[in-house]
């Protein structure tokens, strides 16, 4: 397979042709923060946390969706990128009602971890405090839209791994919500197989197993990649 040589943060890195900057950086042990990216699922570049600076481009590019090229010079942790990442995380907190003290995922939440990682001490923007629904019509699971960050990992896990596509996103901007089937309550979604892959994929406490109380939620999002890998071996 053709190799490409590039520099990431001044380090010479070799990568396979077609690989993304994010994959090349991870292989080289360089950490780029992500939220919507999940091993085993397709990349959508929705969260913009993995934005990097590439020499010769005025725009910041999402590392998960940008393929490596020969001689590429990438910066992953400039002051500008750090400020953007912190602002993104703050905006995510401001947009919905992320009350960590009463969240099932507290202590086991990728958004909370990101806040610490990017050095977010407080949110500089006004909280929107939207009124968001909690749907517990499904006998096993619940969805709390207060905690959803619209990463669409549930949508992709359901579509690409379970092959069902119960989940989707409806609406635009701050009115966007993940939905089941054509916007029916989850318990009435006839396509749902109750497999729980959306639960595994969710980075926050938005999708939870019913009856789980504060800080009880445990999940291993790596299992999605394990399922995908196991299937590839089998077939």
């Amino acid at each position, binding site marked *: 397979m053709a190799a490409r040589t590039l520099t990431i943060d001044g380090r010479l890195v070799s990568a396979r042709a077609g690989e993304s900057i994010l994959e090349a950086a991870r292989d080289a042990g360089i950490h780029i923060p992500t939220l919507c990216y999940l091993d085993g699922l397709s990349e959508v570049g929705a969260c913009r946390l993995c934005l990097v600076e590439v020499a010769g481009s005025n725009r910041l590019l999402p590392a998960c969706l940008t393929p490596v090229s020969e001689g590429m010079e990438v910066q992953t942790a400039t002051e500008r990128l750090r400020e953007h990442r912190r602002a993104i995380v703050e905006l995510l907190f401001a947009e919905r009602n992320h009350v960590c003290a*009463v969240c099932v995922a507290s202590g086991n939440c990728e958004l909370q971890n990101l806040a*610490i990682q990017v050095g977010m001490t*407080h949110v500089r923007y*006004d*909280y929107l*405090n939207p*009124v968001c629904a909690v749907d517990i019509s499904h006998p096993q699971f619940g969805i709390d839209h207060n905690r959803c960050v619209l990463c669409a990992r549930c949508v992709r896990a359901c579509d690409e791994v379970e092959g069902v596509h119960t989940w989707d996103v409806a609406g635009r901007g701050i009115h966007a919500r993940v939905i089941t089937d054509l916007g029916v309550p989850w318990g009435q979604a006839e396509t749902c197989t109750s497999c729980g892959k959306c639960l595994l994929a969710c980075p926050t406490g938005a999708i939870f197993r019913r009856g789980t109380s504060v800080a009880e939620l445990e999940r291993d999002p790596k299992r999605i990649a394990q399922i995908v890998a196991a299937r590839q071996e089998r077939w």
Partner: protein
Amino acid sequence: MSRITFATVWFGGCSGCHMSLLDLDAWLFDLASKVELVYGPLADQKTFPDGVDLTLVEGAIANEEHLALAREIRRKTRVLVALGDCAVTGNVTALRNLAGDPSGLLQQIYAERGDPTLAVPRAPGIVPRLIERVTPLHAAVPVDHFLPGCPPSAPRIRAMLEALLAGAEPSEIGRFG
């Protein structure tokens, strides 16, 4: 060495952060040798004094009294710390923002959902009016340091106080929730 003046304030919160402060146990004696407690729920002082060196604020800004006192504290304090998630993010206290207009909320709580013979308490100068939206402390006044947590643990409060008393920059941000 002369002691610095120290205050703690309790706004819209559950007092859990003050409980966490008391969890410092024996270290409180060390703290007492370095600070003079001049105001707070643990001291019998009715007005916020001038020239306070360090103030810890627990709770979110939820009513007019909080707002006025927050501004007074900021004028009279050198170093202001937002202590705990309610002061830092609004947290549980700010959940009432989802219910919209606070007067409607009070009507629901005191009259419609409770004893219908009761009325919303209105006693000017005694019961402070709720402000329209609960906000974190830094939305009302500039804040120097933030210590999230619900509540922040005693060791984290101690680490921050030790750094501030030594004139150093507190290093640990810590976790929300």
